[in-house]
């Protein structure tokens, strides 16, 4: 057998093997200093992390004379570009939550914890924090050494700078969060002049504290011990879900690659036990054991392994996105033939349809009518029966509305108590009392359905109706 071309990078490999002593599976007792390696999934990650820029920049967008997206809690209004959502429309929030939950379930059943690995703020912030750490303190090995070394000189300086940078990011995070709930520019002014309201300061404090604690200190421990989604998402995954998976058929039996070992050993698999997959893992797990709760499916071990495969001139994909069935050689099922996926998808679609329906039929006007029960009716001097109603009119538009009230349901129905049109201020609920009268002789029944209608005088197409009841005395024999 002719001498196969030995991997050119064997010298480098030996270096990696020396490192392996250092890479241990995470048991929670030690700080994880994950190695950073470039690669395809690393690039995806940068791209998906950019989503969070909108969190920082979003509050500064304007729409007309106000903030484009503003969750005005004291004013009880949500503004999202041209749409204004009032508490009465809050049922849509339930659908938004349902949609988000089902989107998570749908994606997770297809490709595992995509949210965890690429989008979650815990993952993203931790990644940024460790990037800062690496820039200041050096490689994982150097960092571990620095942690062991006594507190003086360079260590002190480097650590202080690192924690200050972390805190700065945490403060910006907190301020950005609050900026969604008040005018961002005015809020900044308040922060700079130390005049912000107490809830704002408290929010910033809490967000700063938890960002610093979670992203700086707890990191993967949050995923392991705090985050409920780690547990919930596990049940959405099945044998057909594609996940970062170690192709054990190809990799085993693993063994260290030494000069000529591949040719001599013969039976050895592709895994050369370099432990690089553990080295780069932000949660410090060994993917070769199989899918596990600690895996946030970030794909960084795929990059690491592919890089090694390049070095030893073996094909990519020893660790790759694959379903358990695929790795075990069981024929895979099409996405649309998996009931779980379909159920998730259609509930998701239904909630989305509800949101779209809600947003397209946001009326400008809402009317509720409360019939006075004490007394239910009153006999007037002229023998007519009078009922009292309280109209609650909600003006959801951006202009004051001039209302006209009318009633129907009986030919002799007389509306009393509103002599002229009245105004409902924009974004407010107005309460108005009106009386309906029917001559006693004309009222044949004890109760009668009546319809009250309010109409905008200036825009006749804007109106609302409410059906109520008209009560009279017990019908006499």
């Amino acid at each position, binding site marked *: 057998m002719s001498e196969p071309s030995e991997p050119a990078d064997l010298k480098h490999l030996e270096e990696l093997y020396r490192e392996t002593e250092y890479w241990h599976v995470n048991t929670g*007792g030690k700080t994880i200093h994950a190695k950073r390696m470039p690669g395809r999934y690393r690039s995806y990650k940068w791209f998906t992390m950019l989503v969070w820029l909108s969190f920082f920049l979003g509050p500064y967008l304007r729409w007309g004379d106000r903030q484009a997206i503003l969750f005005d809690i004291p004013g009880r209004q949500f503004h999202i570009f041209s749409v204004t959502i009032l508490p009465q429309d809050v049922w849509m929030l339930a659908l938004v939550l349902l949609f988000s939950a089902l989107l998570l379930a749908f994606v997770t059943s297809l490709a595992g914890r995509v949210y965890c690995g690429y989008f979650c703020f815990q993952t993203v912030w931790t990644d940024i924090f460790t990037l800062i750490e690496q820039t200041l303190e050096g490689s994982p090995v150097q960092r571990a050494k620095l942690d062991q070394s006594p507190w003086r000189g360079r260590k002190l300086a480097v650590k202080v700078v690192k924690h200050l940078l972390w805190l700065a990011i945490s403060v910006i995070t907190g301020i950005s969060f609050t900026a969604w709930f008040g005018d961002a520019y005015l809020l900044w002014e308040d922060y700079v002049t130390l005049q912000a309201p107490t809830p704002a300061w408290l929010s910033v404090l809490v967000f700063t504290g938890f960002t610093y604690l979670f992203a700086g200190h707890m990191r993967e421990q949050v995923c392991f011990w705090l985050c409920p989604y780690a547990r919930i998402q596990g049940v959405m995954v099945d044998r057909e879900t594609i996940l970062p998976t170690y192709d054990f058929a190809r990799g085993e039996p693993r063994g260290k690659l030494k000069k000529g070992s591949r040719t001599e050993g013969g039976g050895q698999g592709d895994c050369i036990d370099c432990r690089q997959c553990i080295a780069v893992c932000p949660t410090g797990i060994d993917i070769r054991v199989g899918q596990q709760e600690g895996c946030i499916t970030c794909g960084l071990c795929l990059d690491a392994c592919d890089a090694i495969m390049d070095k030893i001139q073996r094909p990519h994909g020893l660790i790759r996105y694959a379903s358990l069935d695929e790795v075990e050689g069981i024929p895979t099922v099409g996405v649309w033939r998996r009931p779980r996926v379909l159920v998730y998808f259609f509930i998701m679609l239904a909630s989305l349809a509800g949101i779209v329906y809600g947003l397209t039929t946001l009326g400008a006007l809402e009317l509720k009518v409360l019939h006075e029960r004490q007394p239910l009716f009153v006999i007037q001097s*002229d023998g007519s029966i009078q009922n009292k109603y309280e109209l609650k009119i909600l003006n959801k538009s951006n202009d004051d509305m001039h209302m006209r009230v009318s009633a129907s349901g009986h030919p002799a129905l007389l509306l009393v108590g509103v002599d002229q049109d009245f105004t409902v201020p924009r974004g407010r609920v107005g309460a108005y009392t009106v009386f309906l009268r029917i001559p006693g002789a004309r009222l044949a029944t004890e109760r009668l359905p009546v319809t009250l209608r309010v109409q905008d005088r200036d825009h006749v197409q804007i109106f609302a109706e409410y059906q109520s009841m008209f009560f009279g005395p017990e019908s006499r024999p």
Partner: protein
Amino acid sequence: MSERKNPATGHDTGHVWDDNLRELTNQPPRWWMICLYLSALFLVVYFILYPTFPLISGSSKGVLGWTQMKRLNESVADIQAVRAPFENRLVGMSAEAILANPELANYAVRSAKVVFGDRCAPCHGTGGAGNPGYPVLADDDWLYGGSVASIEQSIADGRAGMMPAFAAMLNEQQLDALSQYTLALSKGEGRADGQALFASQGCGGCHGADGKGMPMLGAANLTDAVWRFAPGTVESIKYTISNGVNAPGHEGTRSATMPDFKNQLSATEIKKLAVYVHKLGGGQ
């Protein structure tokens, strides 16, 4: 979690159960102990600051001097501060002026609702629905006038109905005829025999020659559909004519007395109540 923080080699209490479960005498975690000490410290601080301990002459006072009564008074002051801008404007205004101002009228209605429930509803019913023997306030029939000023006066000074008892002056037949006539009046009809009696007995002196009543005297309008003493049947009418209203010395006379509230309520409260009653449904 890390093994080193919780060595299983420590001493145990000697309790062993289920073969191998031992109760160790390890220290509780440090955070737990810190919380314990902090809560003890909290207790001491609280003891110093607040009333805590029962003594013979009442509880210990605490250096902050906090009491529930002070807290209540603060809350009352808070609510009064919210109402003050309205209340101050109401002081110099007449009830008519308040009624004419939608904002103030709205305030008066909302804030008088409680007072009405306490003082008026026991007789007149919630929402002025009326009770047997007590007039409905939500209709448009007013014994003493339905203007807001008249209502204000009724509340401040009280009212007492007066009608003589005719049992001694009229015989049974005459009483029947007069009762029938009164009932007919409310239906817009007339009866000759009754009308003669009505005139000869001087009923018109109070109820008016046309029977439409006199608010000055509190005499009821007999031509409308509302009865001061329900139900509007011949028997009921006959009883009223026979026994009168507040007729002195007559046993079984109808009682119609409203107490005055000027000594129990402030002038502003009375004005607010007047506006409230006026807006119940029949103010004029």
